[in-house]
């Protein structure tokens, strides 16, 4: 796990410092008649960005290993970790809700589609789910915003909170959450239902299901007691696979709906070349994902008695 994080850090550090933009560009504002005379070389010196890449990296890795410190944002000088931590709840809330909604919808669809393979409804679901992965998410998000916020006025278009209407905080957040979470879920449902379908098909063709059928077990029981439980196993793997997205946030959706999460922080930092924050987001995400995958493995072992750890 440590070498893994090490690889990630080197790769992302290299990538970033190769970028053509200059991190001091954010300190210059060519559109304002104020603040024209800044000493950019002093800023570069302070940020250490004029040093060779390996010196910058050595300094950075030393800071992390020795002090457990991710450094400070170039932009506002706040500790990187603090900037990340304050955004994690918003991202987890948005992504968690979206993933939860999509499982709730996708699993029944997947089961139905597998059991009634090639039925008209299965074909409809197939078509819809392909549609779901065929629309660029930014376009879909903006269309939804136009319809549900602007035309119908049902939901707010931006941010996570309103401006002190009569709603209690939790309800207010929920009210703001619905639109972005649904937009995200739309794409996810498409993927998960396809996945559930093929996973279910896989199980249905297994011998023990045939045996169960042959023994005269009712169809409902076959589907839900035998097939469903086994088909759930890959779903756990899927949760593991989804972790990078869970933590990394849905960059585009957060950006469009002005959701104050990690994705927006990531995009913003890339645009202004705030290296320290980009590195921080990358590393924090990677660590969380590695831990998450480990948990998924353990959960898998608990659910599936055939797997025993220590053997592999």
């Amino acid at each position: 796990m440590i070498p893994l994080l090490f690889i990630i850090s080197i790769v992302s550090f290299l990538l970033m410092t190769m970028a053509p933009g200059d991190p001091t560009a954010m300190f210059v504002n060519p559109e304002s008649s104020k603040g024209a005379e800044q000493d950019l070389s002093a800023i570069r010196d302070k940020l250490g960005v004029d040093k060779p890449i390996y010196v910058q990296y050595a300094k950075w890795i030393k800071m992390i290993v020795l002090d457990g410190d991710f450094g400070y944002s170039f932009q506002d000088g706040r500790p990187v970790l603090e900037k990340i931590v304050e955004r994690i709840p918003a991202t987890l809330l948005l992504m968690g809700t979206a993933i939860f909604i999509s499982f709730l919808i996708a699993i029944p669809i997947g089961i139905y589609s597998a059991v009634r393979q090639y039925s008209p409804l299965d074909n409809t679901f197939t078509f819809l789910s392909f549609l779901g992965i065929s629309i660029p998410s930014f376009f879909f998000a903006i269309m939804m915003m136009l319809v549900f916020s602007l035309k119908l006025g049902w939901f707010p278009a931006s941010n996570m909170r309103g401006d002190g209407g009569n709603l209690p905080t939790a309800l207010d957040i929920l009210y703001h959450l619905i639109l972005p979470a649904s937009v995200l879920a739309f794409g996810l449902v498409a993927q998960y239902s396809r996945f559930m379908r093929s996973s279910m098909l896989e199980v249905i063709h297994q011998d023990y299901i045939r045996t169960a059928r042959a023994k005269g077990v009712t169809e409902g029981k076959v589907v839900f007691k035998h097939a469903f439980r086994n088909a759930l196993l890959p779903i756990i793997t899927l949760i593991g696979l989804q972790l990078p997205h869970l933590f990394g946030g849905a960059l585009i959706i957060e950006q469009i709906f002005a959701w104050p999460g990690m994705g927006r922080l990531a995009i913003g930092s890339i645009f202004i070349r705030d290296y320290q924050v980009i590195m921080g987001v990358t590393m924090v995400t990677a660590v969380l994902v590695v831990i998450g995958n480990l948990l998924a493995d353990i959960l898998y072992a608990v659910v599936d008695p055939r797997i025993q750890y220590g053997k592999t």
Partner: protein
Amino acid sequence: MIKKLTAVTIAAVLLISLLSGVSSAARSGFDPKKVGGKVVLTSFSDAVTLIPLRANDQASNDIIGMVFDSLVRKDFYGQPIPGMAERWTYDAKTLSYTFYLRKGMKFHDGKPVTANDVKFSFDMYTHPKTLNTYKADFTDIQSVTVVNDLTVKFTLKKKNVFFLTNAANSGAILPKHLFPRGIDDYNADNSYFSRHPVGTGPFKFKEWRTDERVVVSAFNDYWNGRPYLDEVITRILPDNNVESINLIKGDVDFVQVISPRTVADVEKSSNLKTVVYDRGRFDYIGWNNDNPLFQDKKVRQAMNYAMDRQAVVSKIMLGRGYLGTGPFHPKLPQENKNVKPYPLDLNKAAQLLAEAGWKKGSDGILEKDGKKFEIEIAYNNGNVTRPKVAQILAQNLKKLGIKASVRGYEWSLFLDKQQKGTLDMYVLAWGGYDGNVEHYGILHSSAIPDKNGDGGNNAWHVHYSKVDQLLEAYLQEEDSSKRNKIYQELHAFLADEAIAIFTHHPKLTAGMNKNLLGVRISLSSPYFNIEDWYWKK
């Protein structure tokens, strides 16, 4: 200047004495019935730091402007008027200003404001180690001394006719008691103060949620009476589109700039109104004047004759703008009315290019010394008008036999290249100035950036001794009408030299809730009188 200042001072004293009979905590015309309610504003980006003069971004400075106050304020036309100082005197012999503070002023935390706070603030701004972003405005200050609790004296190193409107106006007064470590606290990037500022302005800081909102609320003890609004909320929204959607939906009350094409959508809504206003800014297509292509004045003039300014104003800005002639807004006295915009005249342009030695090659492209005339016009991605402005020029250049293309760049890349002088041509704007405009920082030869983009903002590489002289003389001239004449001369010179294509000065359109009243937008700020905004009852 002394005469004028004295006049202002007398007027101020008169005003104060008139007011003092009424109440110390209410401005003239204060109407208690207008008090109440909150307004939601927008910003594209989150604030960075709320320590005055540490930030250079609009978002931070807008909030700082509401929370902090300074000795001198500016009126609608940019003239200095009493702020925290109820009056001041100037002694030309010793180059010193003496400011007399109002009695009984308080910081938002209840502590009284004294001359020590004023001295402390300017010590921070002029400290050798200071990270003050606008350091240049303060370099002429020699010393600040406390005369007594309410009197403070500034001594200058040399004459500075903009001292009142620059340093004394932008030097926000800091609470000394919240900076125990002095300059280290001022320079600290991540202090408690930087996210929980305490000032003396009309609004006090209330809440800052990263990437969501900054909230300020009315300060009841403000020396000029509390603002009418109870709260001002600034929401961080990603772009113009989303701003407009929120405005139309009613979740936002005021949007500074509605794009010309979107105005119709906003006006359709019965709850909204739009206000067209002037902003002290110029839009231009610039180039590096040291680029061999543009070293010939005739070529530069040809570029100007090839630009269809009228199309920009009528087709892109939909009529909301003035034709550009130079870096001075037509509403300012520094503008030279005799300078006419270059008309669209492709024949003239072709003739000038021919005179400059550019001949059409076999492929129809202009050539000189075996080199083809090929340029790229750059703009920053995400801006909806600039690609069109670039396109209009490119179309005409193509007709002249110049291989012109347009290209969008991501913002930080664009800035980097523009500052380093490596873009052929670029579409950009410069703004936020009022009657105190001075272009030393963008036109003086000493401000030409080096290859790394360091050393100044004269990215168009203008260097004429005449321009330098005019810029310097302007800063020394005390008589404002003579001063304006100097810039009028500069204006004419720059136009003839065709240092860039000055395309237009846009008129901007703000969109707001129909019931939001009292809004006045000055050349330099849309929030000029935000303490006087109020809701129709």
